[in-house]
């Protein structure tokens, strides 16, 4: 096990094979990827190509079948408490109101009541949940639950954010607002973000680098350096020629077969 070397998170020769019902299924393999501190990396590719598996390994929830994941040069063996994880389902606590859910990480840190409620109010405002503070998760829409989960993640304030399709359930305007907020948080606090998405536009617009996966077994096909500035206007970006060029490149990469057919 080699410690040291650059990068905040390093995936070295990662392979993950699942055994179920006597069959072994390789979810993801031959993964070598170094995530730099302060970087936003999006992972894009077909369903079941092991993107979420990589996040789980970075969080220390899953062990790779082969290879090693390093965080700050140390192999991840147990739960990695430097990361915050936002999964596809929100996992809010149903017995707590929206505001109380967002307060959970602050309570765990032992913040005073006054500070907690002030911070919660800030976050509620940020994710646009004003007026729903005392609603229970079952009483609000899926999009609102996602926003509450995002606010909770931001409240926990981890060094690295692992996000698994966090904005899939949101409408287009709100999604841009959340993406903008995410980039602002990154900018302001130097967070590192690993972001799984199915949306090619999102994969490019928020990324410093976009990692493109092939279908199962998942392999990294290409790492696309977006070269986009750290401060960017996401609402305008989608009409800029440089974005369009990148998006076209990504679409072609994701759907090579269709392009081949169209050309022939």
């Amino acid at each position, binding site marked *: 096990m080699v410690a040291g070397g650059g990068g905040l998170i390093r995936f070295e020769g990662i392979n993950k094979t699942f055994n179920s019902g006597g069959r072994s299924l390789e979810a993801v393999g031959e993964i070598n990827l170094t995530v730099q501190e302060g970087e936003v990396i999006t992972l894009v590719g077909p369903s079941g190509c092991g993107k979420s598996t990589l996040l789980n390994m970075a*969080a220390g*929830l899953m062990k790779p079948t082969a290879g090693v994941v390093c965080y700050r040069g140390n192999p991840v063996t147990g*739960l*990695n*408490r430097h*990361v*915050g*994880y936002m*999964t596809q*389902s929100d*996992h809010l*606590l*149903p*017995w*707590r109101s929206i505001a109380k859910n967002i307060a*959970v*990480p602050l*309570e*765990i*840190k032992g913040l005073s009541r006054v500070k907690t409620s002030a911070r919660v109010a800030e976050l509620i405002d940020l994710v646009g949940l004003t007026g729903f503070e005392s609603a*229970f998760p*079952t*009483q609000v829409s899926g999009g609102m639950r996602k926003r509450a989960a995002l606010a909770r993640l931001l409240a*926990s304030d*981890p060094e690295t954010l692992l996000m698994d399709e966090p904005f899939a359930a949101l409408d287009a305007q709100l999604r841009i607002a959340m993406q903008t907020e995410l980039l602002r948080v990154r900018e302001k606090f130097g967070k590192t973000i690993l972001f799984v998405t199915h949306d090619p536009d999102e994969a490019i617009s928020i990324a410093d680098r976009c990692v493109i996966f092939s279908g199962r077994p998942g392999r990294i096909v290409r790492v696309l350096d977006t070269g986009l500035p750290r401060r960017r206007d996401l609402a305008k970006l989608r009409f800029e020629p440089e974005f369009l060029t990148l998006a076209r490149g990504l679409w072609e990469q994701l759907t090579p077969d269709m392009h081949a057919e169209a050309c022939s």
Partner: protein
Amino acid sequence: MTDVLKINVMRLILAVAFLWGWEYAATAYKLSFYISRPSEIYARLLLWVGDGTLAKHLFVTIYVAISGFVLGSIAGLLVGLVLGRAKTLARVLDPFLMAFYSMPKVALAPVFVLWFGVDTSMKVIFVATVVFFLVFINTYSGVRNVSREQLTILRLMGASELNLLTKIVFPSALVWVFAGLRLSVPYSLIGTILGEMTATNKGLGYLLANTAGTFDTAGTFTTLFVIILLSMTFNGVVRVLEHVLMPWRIEHDAEEATI
């Protein structure tokens, strides 16, 4: 609102028809020795309320049922929480607990008389034993059914074991605990009354056995009526407690079902 009113009117009609039919049948066919009569029961109720008979026996029963219920619930809750978290211990104890659980607790009554005599403490212990298993089994299942994902997310946030217990395990087990408590209410009364019928000279169970033994049918039915009222009151209290402690459940239930 009109729906509720309609339902209530129909209930009232049903109740009146039942009481009238009962009264009529008892009088016309001279059955009052077997089934008494609503008017006699009402008169007896007034008499017992007046001369303090009811209060004397009722309070003994309430005392036994509630102390047994509370003791058994607390013990069941604690053991359920501990075994729910201590996996190895739970596996070791599992067959023994199941053996006890599957035994009809009624069968313990004579043994308890042998051990604890016939006074109030015997009945309290008996009720507590019955309630303990119901609450324990439910609490244990509740703790076991805590979402692992929620636990993991909070662990990543740096939660301690105590944080996990107070923020996730206990509240999520609460739903199950209340299922156990609700189930325990009738059982605590069954236990109390059975205990009182077996060995004592006070309590509603004694009153029941005594009136039936002296062919005082009106007395027996009056006692039954009081027992029903008592049981419904206990259920109501548990339901109120449930609403207070788990407001999110009520809000959820009030919603329309969607898919």
